């Protein structure tokens, strides 16, 4: 009867706690139902122990000597470490991860051995100051060492990018000039106001591929003296284009920008359809692979969310092996998804980083994930066999 009384006393607490937990697991830290049930079982077990705990003997809290339970803890610890080693080896944990888990477990065992040491007596005066200084030293050096011990990168790679490059237009070939011009366009964020893609939309300024921007002389004048002639439709714009680019951009770079802009109208890649032959072109697929894997530009590394083998590595990332979902999309849908992103999902608009042709290249590569890793043309509504949820697909570039 006594036990039943104790259960009743704690039952309301258990129910309230679990309702709260269910809410937390649904909204704050969303988890699948199986996990929620597991937590309910876990907390119910905890409460049952709390009910029974009054039957446990009450002793004085004496604290232990450090070596009292050392032998026993070492035996249990060794058995546990053995099981952990077997488990991590069986599931093929990579070396670094295995090592971290083992070191962390060793620290856990050490902590559990040390936890019941005899209470420390209070300190005062110089001894208290010394112990505080020692504590500061341990905390500070511990955190700093952690910062040094974790893997590092070489900042020189980024510093190199920040250094102003020497570039002389007379000595450069056409390809370099256009590439430098494109970079200037990006560096000075001209894209904030001007869309340069075919079919682009006008922003604060005209979409440059959709209007006649004139010859080299005219383009240069529009950059250096933008207020001399205001583009049609922008006469009432209160904040016109800044007039300092003529002095800010070094003349060789300015010339490269002019040449780049002169060429954009000549690009004949649409946003509606994959260029002919690109679905299976090995060169295109190779370049798409380099964009997807972040080799070409580490800011764009599609694999970090979608997975190298198509198994998503991030919550909410699209499963590129989902044949039904992918087959329902047209070329234009695929392009729009990469270019504009998908609202309310982590999929960003990559148009600021990838020109149209690069978007098509990466789509050509992505297409292989739902074609069993093979290079095949995509067609909306095609019939494809489904891929098992945990079956990886590694595209083979022909």
């Amino acid at each position, binding site marked *: 009867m006594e036990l039943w009384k104790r259960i009743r006393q704690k039952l309301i*607490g258990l129910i309230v*706690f679990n309702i709260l*937990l269910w809410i*937390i*697991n649904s909204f704050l*830290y*969303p*988890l699948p139902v199986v*996990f929620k049930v597991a937590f309910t079982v*876990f*907390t119910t077990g*905890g409460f049952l*122990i*709390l009910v029974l*705990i009054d039957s*446990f003997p*009450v*002793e*004085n*809290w004496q604290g232990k000597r450090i070596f009292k339970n050392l032998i026993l803890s070492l035996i249990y610890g060794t058995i546990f470490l053995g099981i952990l080693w077997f488990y991590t080896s069986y599931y*093929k944990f*990579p070396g*670094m*991860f295995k090592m971290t888990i083992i070191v962390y*477990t060793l620290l*856990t065992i050490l*902590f*559990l051995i040390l*936890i019941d040491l005899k*209470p*420390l007596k*209070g300190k005062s005066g110089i001894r208290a100051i010394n112990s505080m200084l020692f504590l*500061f030293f341990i*905390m*500070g050096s511990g*955190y*700093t060492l952690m*910062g*040094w011990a*974790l*893997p590092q*990168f070489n*900042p020189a790679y*980024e510093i190199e990018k*920040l250094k102003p490059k020497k570039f002389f237009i007379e000595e450069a070939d056409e390809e370099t000039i256009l590439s430098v011009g494109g970079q200037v366009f990006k560096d000075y*964020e001209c894209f904030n106001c001007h869309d340069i893609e075919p079919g682009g939309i006008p922003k604060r300024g005209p979409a440059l591929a959709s209007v006649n921007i004139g010859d080299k002389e005219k383009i240069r004048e529009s950059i250096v003296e933008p207020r001399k002639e205001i583009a049609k439709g922008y006469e009432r714009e*209160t*904040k016109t284009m800044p007039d300092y680019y003529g002095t800010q951009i070094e003349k060789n770079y300015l010339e490269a920008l002019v040449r780049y802009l002169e060429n954009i109208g000549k690009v004949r890649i649409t946003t509606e359809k994959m260029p002919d032959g690109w679905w299976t072109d090995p060169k295109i697929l190779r370049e798409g692979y380099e964009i997807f*894997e972040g080799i070409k530009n*580490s*800011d764009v*590394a599609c694999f*970090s969310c979608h997975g190298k*083998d198509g198994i998503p*590595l991030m*919550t909410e990332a699209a499963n590129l092996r989902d044949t039904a979902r992918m087959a329902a999309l047209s070329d234009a849908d695929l392009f729009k998804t990469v270019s504009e992103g998908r609202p*309310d*999902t982590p999929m*960003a608009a990559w148009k*600021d980083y990838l020109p149209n042709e690069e978007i098509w290249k990466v789509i050509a590569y992505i297409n292989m994930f739902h074609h069993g890793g093979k290079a095949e043309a995509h067609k909306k509504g095609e019939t494809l066999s489904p891929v098992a949820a945990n079956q990886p697909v590694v595209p083979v570039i022909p």
Partner: protein
Amino acid sequence: MEFLEPLQFPIFGNRTAIWIIAQFHILFASFILGVPLFAVIAEYLYMRKGDYRYERLAKDIARVMAIAYSLTALSGGTFAFLLFALYPDFSYHILNKFSYLWILFYPGLVVVETILMYLYYFSWEPLKERKGIHLSIGILLNIVGILTLFNMDAIASYMNTPPRDLINPTLWENVYNYTWMPLNLHRLVGNITYGGYMVGMMGAFLYVWSENEEERAYYDWMGYIGNTIGVGAMIFLPVLGYIYAREFYRYAAELGTYMMSDRLSMYFEAQAIAVGLMFLASNYYIYLSMKRIEGAVRYVPIVRFGFIVVFFAACIWFIPRHYFATMVPEEWMYEGMTKADFLKTTELPSHLGFLALMKAKNTAAVLLLVVTLLNYIIYRIAVKKGRIEWGEIDFRSQYILIFLGFSDIWLMNLMGAVRTLVRKDYHVYLLLKDTTLEAYTPTLAYASSLTTAITFAFFSIFVFIVWLGLRFGKEKG
């Protein structure tokens, strides 16, 4: 617009100089925003329960807050002056975009806050018979403090996520950007955590300095209250951090990947390890607190099991996707082996990829939360059955409180650096470029060393303030 050439800060360079002063300012500012919340709650509890310890706690906190206030203003002024001298183009940009907010609203709030703060502190005795009015002043002080925080968050969040695809955005559009509200929530709850741990740390210092039983009992209680509030608020920080990070992904996924998978990923690894340690330390403190309760020894087995669960959860919490600090390994990292071999030892294979996903991380977070709450419930049950002997706590617990305060400050500094570094070489992402050669992401080794140095410096000043406010006067008296 022509600007004067920026000055060059000697020895440290411009970036590090701004880094140090900004961190100092935010630590003091968070302190004077976090602890008034604490003081008002304590004063309210005194009114309700009549326990004089709450009144004394509120008063003690307010005294320290009054001293810290002038240092906040001093560091804020220095920060602003340095910003104008070292980054004139950026200062002009912000003045231009947030003119009214920066020139009128913010100084206005600071003036009102200052008046209310001193009014709250100096009206304690005159209004001791009219507690309701005094408490209202405290509540008003907190409202103005929160408004000031939201105001500055507008600029901090705008720098990372300015409105895109808007022609000439209005002031409100600049303020209400993607990450403003998530940053507000994250900082607000973060400040409560910080306030709690700071009070816990004050209690610990004063416990060590105590000379009699009565003082030790009071400061033991003070440390306990501080830790309870600190860990109670910290439970919600991971989810608020997650919401904040998710907004980065929604705004521009490249910012999210730069944080979580690229050059800032190991910063998060360090954060995960430190958070795991803090949860463990908080639970250990509850455990040590139980030791001073008669008959509580019977709960030892369940608390020990709880420790194992905390370790297990922390282990899942900090398992990264890969053990290299870039999106794709740099060549020097795998010198002497092939890239494939390097990846085999440093990257989670697909079948274990779930360990790095939110499902696993959420499970770990909930485990940390459940165990901490269960331990606290057990503590309360033990209190009902036995008597607490305040002042008799194991001396180790005071070291734990100081460790928690130190870790909290260290983490605030490191994560503050992440918030700034995430936009790479931009002052305002994709709108205003930082064209200096210092605009690269520093290594974690550098950032952690600087963070430790700043934490030490702040710690020294904080100890001095506590001594000056709560010890020096009494010694003389």
